[in-house]
């Protein structure tokens, strides 16, 4: 297909040292076909990323050679399994700029990591004075943003209900950015915790974390960052960001499903009450009561997701091998190309920032037919699927954003390190096809 307008200079320029066609060979699933020999055009990486051979091989090798439970055996396999599991902790710590490996806690996913902090805060009620930072009750406030994924909204709504605290939020501007005009009025002295998304999964917006963290610090509030959509796509350094906690998930960064990460500042984790109780998180147990292990094990009750953690280690190695700055530059180029290309589709309206400035490669939009009638995203997704193009449709677990923009749902195309501009072209052509189908 042809696109009418020449692109902005350099918008789709290939990134030096990053050969996307070579990279794609690392991902076996990208070579498969769907619906009778159509090439797969996978534009749903914000939902989950595909996995490279390195990750698949690491998981398989773990089970073939080293499988044992961790932290509790004295035999060879147990020691090897423990070493592999703990090696990922070191890799993750280095990957996000953490100064101490004990700051990295493995969870099931981002959702569990965020719930861990929220439940620790209500558990502070029955903990000693060392947990004062986490105590929250009536009159206290919790602040989130209007663009949170439900996983960073519902746990805080539940915390507010359990403790009598009040939930407040930072609203959005019409182009899908945070409205910081009244930041000081939203984050006040009553605020105990600010939890916000780094990059929105529905709008693609990358938020100005530093500014909000600065205000939260002024009032002594804890800060939690949901990095589910940022850590997989560009360099994230916890020291630079200045947050207290960072939650992210393995499966969006080329690792298996089933493993997420909570990073927390050591001095906070050391006094934070546990969330889940059980094996491995204890120090001394009697029938009357127990004392708890120091972090990170205090927050890793029960047998963990060992093979997935091993796979996560391989994924981190893979990302470092390609280079996070190179990945970010590639995705930025594809995103800029896609924003230009989507603008050529009649009746298409982007929900979120229309320019590639401070925005990532998750692009939501709504579409109308020739008569200006809305074509429902569910229908858009179905017809794209028929062409082998995988997108996500719905409210993307961020229903308040749909309400804010007065749309029932959106279609979302999302990119990753293996996405090509050719796939963006296929999407644009597919969208023309959708409009033809519903305008007939």
């Amino acid at each position, binding site marked *: 297909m042809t696109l009418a307008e020449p692109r902005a200079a350099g918008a789709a320029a290939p990134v030096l040292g990053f050969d996307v066609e070579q990279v794609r060979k690392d991902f076996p699933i990208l070579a498969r076909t769907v619906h009778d020999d159509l090439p797969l055009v996978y534009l749903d990486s914000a939902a989950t990323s595909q996995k490279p051979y390195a990750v698949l091989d690491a998981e398989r090798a773990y089970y073939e050679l080293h499988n044992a439970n961790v932290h509790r055996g004295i035999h060879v396999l147990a020691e090897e399994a423990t070493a592999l599991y703990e090696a990922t902790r070191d890799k993750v710590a280095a990957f996000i700029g953490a100064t101490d490996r004990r700051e990295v806690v493995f969870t099931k996913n981002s959702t569990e990591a965020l719930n861990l902090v929220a439940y620790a805060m209500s558990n502070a009620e029955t903990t000693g004075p060392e947990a004062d930072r986490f105590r929250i009750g009536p009159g206290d406030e919790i602040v989130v943003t209007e663009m949170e994924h439900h996983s960073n909204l519902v746990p805080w709504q539940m915390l507010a209900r359990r403790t009598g605290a009040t939930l407040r939020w930072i609203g959005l501007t019409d182009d899908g950015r945070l409205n910081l005009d009244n930041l000081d009025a939203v984050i006040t002295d009553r605020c105990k915790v600010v939890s916000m998304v780094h990059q929105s999964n529905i709008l693609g917006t990358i938020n100005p974390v530093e500014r909000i963290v600065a205000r939260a610090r002024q009032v002594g509030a804890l800060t939690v960052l949901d990095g589910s959509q940022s850590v997989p796509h560009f360099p994230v350094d916890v020291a630079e960001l200045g947050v207290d906690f960072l939650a992210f998930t393995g499966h969006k960064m080329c690792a298996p499903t089933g493993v997420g990460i909570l990073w927390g500042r050591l001095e906070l984790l050391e006094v934070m009450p546990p969330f889940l109780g059980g094996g491995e998180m204890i120090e001394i147990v009697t029938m009357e009561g127990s004392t708890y292990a120091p972090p990170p094990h205090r927050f890793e009750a029960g047998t963990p997701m060992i093979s997935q953690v091993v796979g996560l280690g391989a994924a981190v190695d893979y990302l470092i091998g390609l280079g996070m700055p190179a990945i970010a530059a590639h995705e930025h180029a594809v995103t800029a190309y896609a924003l230009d290309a989507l603008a050529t589709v009649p009746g298409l309206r982007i929900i979120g920032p229309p320019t590639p400035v401070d925005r990532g490669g998750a692009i939501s939009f709504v579409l109308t037919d020739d008569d200006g009638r809305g074509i429902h995203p*569910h229908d858009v997704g*179905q017809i794209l699927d028929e062409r082998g193009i995988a997108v996500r449709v719905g409210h993307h677990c961020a229903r308040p954003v749909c309400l804010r923009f007065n749309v029932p749902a959106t279609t979302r195309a999302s990119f990753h390190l293996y996405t090509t501009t050719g796939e963006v072209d296929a999407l644009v052509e597919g969208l023309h096809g959708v409009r033809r189908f519903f305008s007939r």
Partner: protein
Amino acid sequence: MKLDSMYQEIILDHYRNPLHRGLRDPFDAEVHHVNPTCGDEVTLRVKVTGGVVEDVSYESEGCSISQASASVMSDLVIGKKIDEALELEREFLALMQSRGTAEGDEDRLEDAVAFAGVSKYPARVKCALLSWMAWKDATAKAVDPASAAAATPAAAAPAALDVPEQEKP
């Protein structure tokens, strides 16, 4: 094109020109049902007189399948005895759970047989069922206002949604 088996012209016609749309008075019960995964919503009213479905009116938002299904359903059940209409609902549910193996009885289901192709798409079955479940719920409330009917999409749809994705023909 395979999609034509789902997007039958009859479905697209109902989608473009829905029947019985708009909320009307009088009514005996009103319900609001949602499909949380895709954001489809329907508000639906039922008026029942002497064991007969006198009117079904609705406002809905959603995809072509869910919109067309509300139109077809309301046209089919209005004027029927409640028992008869409930029997049609069971037949439609069975058709939607058939994974593409049933055609439906056109003499009884009329335009609703056009949705047979939808049953091959597990993710879309709940779109087709949304308004039917809302109607069933509203009718139960209209007949016995004290009953908190369990006729929600969540209660009715799981069997249909268990179809593995790979079984798409």
